[in-house]
């Protein structure tokens, strides 16, 4: 996806409003990679792990669990969209596939939960890559469309074979069962607050995995591909390999997220996943900001926390759909980096506006866009 020329400066991981503002002020100059930032992030995460379950009711603890799980999904999609410039309209289907595989393994085997997650991630990676393989040689629009087709096809298949519910055979589905057993959770994370912490830890590991890739050779190759595929081809980069790599990595972490979905939902159902999910996922990823890792968290927040909030307030979920639609149009026309980049600028502008209203002279400096 072609946007402004400068590649996103490092991961401006601004986990709170305040630091986001600070990051925005640091703005244009490159930030030194000190030990301070990782320490701040680690402290913040520790706070999240410790305090979210105690200050929020179980209803919102569950909402935060979903945010943690879906931030992995949006991270994967953001990687494809923002780093490599490939739009997938089939990530919802990949997630459903991951959930199916993990649920099947959890019912069929006594493997420890982390191993099931890993196996689910790997199997989803293979399936997701097979899906993407033929599409990789195509241009952006065709890739998006073929993934949309595949999402539709996978939805039909899952509707017919159904999700495992403790039955036997390959599908593990028993259509006649009346008392469906819940999908098991890891012993250390049986309760909802514990499963929240478990999900956050897994999410952190996935973020680190992606970070390692971005800092390494694949990250540089992806940046080159996003700038110009022809130029990177000429520069000796095996573009097909690295695009496939990105696809595999995104599918892997989405598969892991699918395993967490299985453990968190406990009952899976073909009604739970729809073709529209993939489109909503893309919408929130664009709104959150596909170019930064914080964007993935914002996207998951928009997708899952807002939904829980509106339900609690009794507001129709249709308003959320409309909001996402407006968000997509706004992001694509005016703010290609999504909320993460946009919010600090907007807050700064708001601050200037308030100061202006209070009558103090300000230096009105238009940020270059």
């Amino acid at each position, binding site marked *: 996806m072609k946007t402004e020329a400068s590649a996103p400066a490092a991961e401006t991981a601004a986990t709170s409003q305040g630091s986001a503002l600070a990051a925005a002020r640091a703005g244009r100059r490159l930030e030194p990679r000190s030990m301070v930032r990782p320490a701040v992030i680690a402290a913040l995460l520790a706070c999240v792990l410790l305090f979210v379950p105690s200050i929020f*009711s179980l209803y*919102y603890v*569950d909402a935060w669990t979903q945010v943690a799980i879906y931030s992995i999904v949006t991270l994967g999609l953001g990687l494809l969209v923002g780093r490599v410039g490939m739009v997938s309209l089939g990530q919802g289907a990949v997630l459903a596939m991951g959930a199916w595989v993990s649920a099947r393994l959890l019912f069929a085997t006594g493997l420890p939960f982390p191993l099931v997650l890993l196996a689910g991630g790997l199997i989803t990676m293979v399936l997701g890559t097979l899906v993407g393989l033929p599409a990789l040689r195509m241009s952006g629009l065709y890739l998006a469309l073929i993934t949309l087709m595949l999402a539709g096809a996978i939805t039909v298949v899952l509707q017919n074979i159904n999700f495992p519910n403790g039955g036997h055979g390959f599908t593990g589905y028993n259509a006649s069962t009346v008392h469906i057993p819940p999908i098991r959770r890891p012993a250390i994370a049986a309760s909802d607050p514990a499963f929240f912490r478990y999900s956050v830890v897994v999410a952190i590991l996935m973020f680190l995995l992606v970070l390692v890739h971005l800092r390494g050779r694949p990250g540089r190759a992806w940046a080159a591909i996003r700038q110009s595929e022809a130029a990177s081809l000429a520069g000796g980069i095996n573009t097909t390999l690295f695009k496939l790599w990105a696809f595999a990595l995104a599918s892997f972490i989405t598969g892991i997220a699918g395993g967490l979905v299985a453990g968190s939902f406990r009952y899976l159902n073909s*009604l739970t996943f729809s073709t529209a999910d993939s489109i909503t996922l893309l919408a929130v990823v664009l709104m959150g900001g596909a170019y930064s890792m914080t964007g993935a968290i914002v996207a998951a927040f928009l997708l899952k926390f807002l939904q829980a909030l509106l*339900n609690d307030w*009794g507001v129709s979920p249709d308003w959320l759909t409309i909001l996402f639609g407006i968000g997509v149009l706004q992001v694509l026309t*005016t703010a290609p980096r999504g909320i993460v980049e946009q919010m600090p600028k907007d807050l700064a502008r708001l601050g200037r506006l308030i100061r202006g209203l209070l009558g103090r002279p300000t230096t009105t400096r238009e940020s270059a866009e």
Partner: protein
Amino acid sequence: MRLIYPHVLRLRTVIALAAVIGAALLAGCGSSSSTTSAAPGSGGSSSASATTASSGGGGSSGGSTDTSKCGTKPGVKATGTPINIGTIDTKQPGTDFSDGPNMITAYYNCVNANGGVNGHPVHLFVQYDQTQPAQIAAAAKQLIQTDHVVGIVGVFDLLECTIDQGYWKQLGIYEMGAGIAPECWSTPNSAAVNMGPRYSSDGAVQYGLTQHPAKIVFVQSNVPGTGYIAAGPKALADAQHVPITELTENVPINDANSVALDLVNKAGSNGWVVLNFTPPEALVILQAAQKLGLEDRVKGWGCSTPCNTDFLASSLGARWNHKLFVNAELTSPDDHNGPEMQLYKAILKQYGSAVAGGLGSFSEMGYLLGKFSVDALEKVKGPYTMQSVNAAFKNIKDEKTELICQPWVYGNYPLHIPNNSDFTTTPDNGKMVTAQGCTPISAADPQIAQYRSAAGSAPSTNPPTG
């Protein structure tokens, strides 16, 4: 590449973001603080507060029938400590069951305006879900831990019974609702006012069998639990040695013409086609059959209870008169007008402005659930605790009503199929009319047999009057 109206859009982003952040903070604070306060009548649940507002306006303008009969002290507003009841309902694009809880709220508001339950007002806390299991489990915890509800009444949901059964059992909660999932009829902790897809399909097949078709073709939407539903019609057809073909169709149906054609071909000229779909899907298939002139190509058509709407009858037209036979679990509000039906209509008119669909099966079931729960609550002696309220719910028996075929009972049974006697309707020039009076569902269905042996009584029938 260049921006349009950047300033306008930016400002909007700022406002939107401020709202989002503020909302997040509010949610955190709200949930932590409300654990200490019972929040009587406050906006803990939006739909409750919405209908409360509407009832205030409608209080003075009485309808043709007096609604004060819903309570014990006409015109006296209940002022005691509120009794909190909770419910979980599906509300998502394409599947919106909010009419059910909205009607229960209307009933409670009527009761609250007329003396309440022993002086206490009843409040319904509604949680909506979008068929996401985690969300449904969380909603149950929200109701219990944050809203402090003492009972669960009025669950109109696609998945709730499956997901929350374990939690209810653990807490000793006996829920009442109108469900879809098999667990709503097959566990000790749930009793439904509706018949549900399996027993309603039984009823439609049972009527078809009385017409001695050569074959039954039973088709339903391809959603989880199809095997459980199909087992009922199969047992009934097998008992009469009539061959049965069972099919599923993916929903939403994209090519109804093909589906209708396929059904008719499979049934043959002396066969009987029975549909089990939501109203829109059933209508689509029946209309396609009509367009292709297929309605006379089989001996007859049957449909489970969702088809029982005048809307469907008027959409189909006269060619289906006495050709389509629909299983009906509830008395039609159009051709019955006994005192109870009048009360239902009056409450709906005065308090039910939030009930979008108006008269119909959803609001009828809402009325029944409101009535059954209030009747039970009135019998509670002493404080309203989770224990006392659920004991009262479990003790509900012999609830005679015009709206269903037989007295409703909860009871202490391993499974609950309290609504197991039904009648059959057929379109007649744009209206649904009764084709067969109340008939018990055959005990050839093993689940029905098990329930009757547990509940210990053959269904006593009180045929709908009027």
